[in-house]
C-alpha cells in the first residue's frame, strides 16, 4: 500500500498480542503515544532491537497527560522500567499500559499495585511506605500526627498476622473487598 513504514514486524505484533492484553490497533496507538514523547529518539520503525533498547527518560515520561497528575507516577515508572530507574523502553511502556488496561485480570493488577505501594522494595508495605503514600496522596496536607494515626489505623485494619506491616496476601485481602479498585486502577490510552 504505497510507501507505508512498517512499525513492527508481524512476528512482533503477534508476540505483543500474545504477551499483553492489547489488540493490534491498541499496540500501534501505544507506539504512537510513545513516539510523541520523544520523536527524535524513538524511531517509526521498531522492527529491530529498538523496542527494548531505546529508553525515554523519566522526566519525559512524566509529561504524558495520563500520568501528569498522578501522585504515584515516579513509583509506577520505576516499577515497570526494566532497570528500575524510571527510564522506560517501549516494551516497558506497553507492559505498563497493558497491566493498567481494562482487560487485565484483577490478580496481575493487585500484584503490581502492591509493588507500586511498596516504596522501599522490602516486599512488605510497612508504616514508612504508608506514610509516603499518604503524603503523596494528600500533598502534605495532613500533619504528622494525623498521618501516623491513619497509618496505624490501616495496619490495625489489615494486618492479620501481627507483624506490623502488610504482606502481599494481606494487601490482596484488603483489595478484594474494595469494589472500586478495578475502576480506579485503570488507565485508558
Amino acid at each position, binding site marked *: 500500500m504505497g510507501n507505508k513504514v512498517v512499525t513492527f514486524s508481524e512476528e512482533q505484533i503477534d*508476540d*505483543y498480542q*500474545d*504477551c499483553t*492484553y492489547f*489488540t493490534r*490497533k491498541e499496540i500501534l496507538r501505544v507506539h504512537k503515544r510513545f513516539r510523541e514523547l520523544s520523536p527524535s529518539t524513538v524511531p517509526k520503525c521498531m522492527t529491530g532491537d529498538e523496542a*527494548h533498547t531505546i529508553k525515554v527518560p523519566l522526566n519525559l515520561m512524566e509529561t504524558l*497527560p*495520563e500520568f*501528569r*497528575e*498522578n501522585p504515584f507516577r515516579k513509583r509506577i515508572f520505576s516499577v515497570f522500567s*526494566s532497570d528500575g530507574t524510571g527510564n522506560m523502553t517501549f*516494551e*516497558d511502556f*506497553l*507492559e505498563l499500559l497493558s497491566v*493498567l488496561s481494562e482487560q487485565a485480570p484483577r490478580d*496481575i493488577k493487585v*500484584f*503490581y*499495585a502492591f509493588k507500586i505501594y511498596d516504596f522501599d*522494595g522490602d*516486599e*512488605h508495605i510497612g508504616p514508612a511506605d*504508608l506514610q509516603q*503514600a*499518604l503524603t503523596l*496522596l*494528600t500533598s502534605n*496536607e*495532613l500533619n504528622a500526627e*494525623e498521618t501516623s*494515626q*491513619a497509618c496505624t*489505623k*490501616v495496619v490495625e*485494619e*489489615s494486618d*492479620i*498476622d*501481627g507483624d506490623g506491616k502488610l504482606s*502481599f*496476601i494481606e*494487601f490482596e485481602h*484488603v*483489595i*478484594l*473487598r*474494595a*469494589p*472500586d*479498585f478495578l*475502576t*480506579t*486502577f*485503570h*488507565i*485508558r490510552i
Partner: protein
Amino acid sequence: MNEERRRGSQDASISDIEEENETEDTEHIPMNDCELGLPPPIIVTDNGGVCSKLDDAVPNNNHPVARRRPRPNHLHINITNCTSSDLSSHESLPSHKVAAMTPISLSPSWAKPHRLIRARKASLCSTPGYVTFRNPTNRISSSTYAEELIHAIENDESLMADSPASEQMRLQTVRGMAEAMELRRNVKEKICYNIGIRNQNSPSDPTKWFKYRLKKSFRKVNCGTRELLGHFELWGSTIKSIEGRFGTGVATYFRFLRSLFLINLCVFIMSFSFLVFPQLLDRFYHWNNTTISANSSVLVLEPKTYPYEEINSTFYIVDLVTGGGWLADTELFYGKYNSHSVHINEGEYYSIPDAYFFTTAACYLFTVIVLSIKVAKSYRKNFIEMQGGFTNVYAQRIFCGWDFGITNSEAAELRKQTLYNELRELLDEENNAERSGAKTLIQRLTLMACRVGVTILVGSLLIGSGVLVWFLLARQKMLVNQDVGTLEGRQQASMVMSLVVTGVMLILPMIFSRLCAIEQYSNPRNSVFITLLRTFGLEVAIVGVLLAYWQKSSKEVQCWETSLGQETYRLILVDFFIALIGTSFAEFIRSIVYQYVWKGIGAPEFDIARNTLNLIYNQTLFWVGFYYSPLLSAVIVVKLFITFYVKQACVLHNCKPPSRSWRAAQIQTVFLALTFLAIIGVLFTLGYTMTRVPASKGCGPFREIEHAYLIIKHKLNSIDKNSNWYTIGEWIFKPGVVAGYIIALCVGVYYMRAVAHARGAMVELLRNMLVLEAEDKIFLQKNIREAKSGRWEPSPLSRGRIKPLPISSTASKQQSAL
C-alpha cells in the same frame, strides 16, 4: 495439637519456623510469612542444590513440621543451573552467612516453594486456568530464569496439551507472568517451538486437528470483530475526557446513557423495519389492477393520490407537542395500524396484527435479555467478587482512593482535597467516638422517631402525588372527550397533566434529599441509597397510576390505547423541555452567576443520582408507551442523542468536579437493577393488559380480536395439526414436561446455592486458620527467643514433640558461625 493444626494448614508455617531462627540476627532479613507473598531471594550452593537461605537454617530431617504432606496443585521447581557467582552479588546477605548455610536438596513434593507456581485448573465455568509467577527482582541471569520457567511450564501436563483449552491457558500464563516483556517473549517462543516438536512426533488425530484450527480461526475472527467494533465505539473519546476531568462517577452516567441509547436504537431499527414500514407502504401505495392488453391485467404498485385522506383534522404545530389532533391518526400511535393484512405481492400478505404483536414482543424480549446480562455481570463484578464489607475504610481510601484516570490538574487538586477531607472526617469520627461514647437511649429514640416520621411523610407524598395524577387524568378525560370549549382549551387541558407530573418529578426528589439530611444517617452512602429508593418509588407510583387509570377506563373511551400512547408521548416531550433544557439552562445561569457575580452561590455540581434516575424514568415511560406507540422508539432515540450532547456541554462548561468521592461501582449495579426492575414491572402490566383488558373495537390492529394474546392462539390453531412441528411443539409444552423443566431449574438453583454456601463457609474457615497461624507464629517466635537466650522451658503440651536440644544447638552453632 499444634502439629495437627499445622499439618492441615498452609505451608506458611514451615517458613515461619525456619525464619524464627534468624530473628536474633543483626541483619534484617525480610520475613516472608506466607508462600504466596513475594518470596525471598534464592541462594545457590555449589553442589547444585538450590534452596532459600531460610530453608538452610534448619536441618529439616528432624524437624517435626518439616514432615509435611504435599499440597496438591503445586509445582515446585528444581533449579540446577545457577552459579555461585550469584551468591556474592546477593546484597542483603553477607558472604560469611552464606557460607555457613548447609545445603538441602529439595524433593519436589513437600519443600517450601521458592517461586510459587499457582496453577488454577479450569473451573466449571470455564475461566481458563493460568499460572502466575512472582519473581525476585533480577537475582539470577535472565536466560537461566527463562529456562526455569519453561521447565516449570513443560512439567504441567494440562498446559502442554494440544487443544484450544490449553492454548488458552498458555496464553493466560504468558500474559499473567509478571516479568519483563523480553523474558516473556523468549518463554513463549520456546514453548511454542517445543509444542510444535511434540505435536510433530505424536500422531495427531486429523479431526481433532481440524477442530483445533477451526477454533483458532474462529477466535481470530472474534478478535478482529472486537477490534472493529472498538473502532466504532460511540462517543468513546468524549467520555474519556469527561472521565479525566470529573472522575469515574460522572463517566458512568454517560456510559449508562450510551448503553440505553444503543439498546433503544436496536429496538427502533427492529420496530421500524418490521412494523412501521409496511404500514407506511400501505398508506402510500396501493395495488392497482391495470389492464395491459385485452386479456391480461397485472397488479401494479401505484402511489395513492391522497395518502392522508383518512385523517379528519387539520395539522397544527401544537399537535406535535400534545400528540393529539392530526398526530393521533398517524403511525405514531396504535390506532392507525390496520387489522387486516397488507398486500405485498401477488398472493402474499403481510399480516399487520401478527407483525405488531410479535415485533413488540421481540423488542421487549431483546431489551430484557440485554439488561439482565448487564445486571448479572455488574452484580458479579461488584458484589460477589468483592464480598461486600466496609471494614477496611482507611486502607481502601489510601490504596483505591486515587482515580488513575484523572488527567486534569484541577480535578487532581480536587481529588486530593477530597481524600484529605475524607481522611480527616474518619479520623475526627474516631476521636469523637472515643470521646463522646455511644448515643444515649433518648437520642436513639428521637432519631428513630424522626426517621419513622420522615418515612411516613414521604409515603404520604407518594400517595398524594398518585391521587393528584388520577384526578388530573379524570379531569382531562372529561374535558377532552366532551368537545367542550375551544380547540385550544382542549389542547391546553391535555398538556396540564404532563406539566404537573414533570414538575412533581423535578421537585419531589429535591425535597426527598433535604428530608434525608434531617434523618442523619451515619453513612452518607445510606442516605443516597434511601433517596434513590424513594425517588424510584415516586416514579413507580406515577407510572402505575397512569397505567391503572387507562386500563380501568378502557371501556369509556373510544381508542384508549392511543390515548395512553399520547400520554406517554406528552410526558416524554415535556420532560425533554423542562427537565433537560430547563435544568441545563438553570445550571448555566448559576455558573454565570458564580463566575461573575456572587461566589457564595457555589458552582453547580453534576448530581449523578438525580440524572441517572431521570434516565431511568424516561426509559420506563418509553417501555410503557412502546406497545401503544411503536414510533416512540424514534422519539426516544433522538431525545437520548440530544441529551448526551446537552449534558456533556453542561458538565464541561458549567459544573465543577464532584466534591464527594463517588463509589461508582456498587451504585451502578443498583441503577442497573432498578432499570431491570422497571422493565419487569412494565412487562407484567403489559401481560395483564393483553390478557384481561379488551382491545378497542374502533381502532388498532387488534380490533377484531377480543384480547391481544388471542393472536397467539389463532396462530397456533392455524398450524397444520399433522405436521412435525406441531407434534414436537405439543410434546414440548405438555404439562408434565413443563413441570420437568421447572423442577430441573429448581434443582439447579438449589445446587448452586449449596455450592455457594459451602464455598463461603470454606472461606470463613480459611480466614480463621490464617488468624490462628498468625498467633502460632507469635507464640513460636517467643519460644525461640527464649530458647536462644537459654530461658526456654518446655511446656507440658510440647514435651515429646519439639526437642529443645536440636533447636538450641543449631541456633548456637549458627550464632557461633556468624
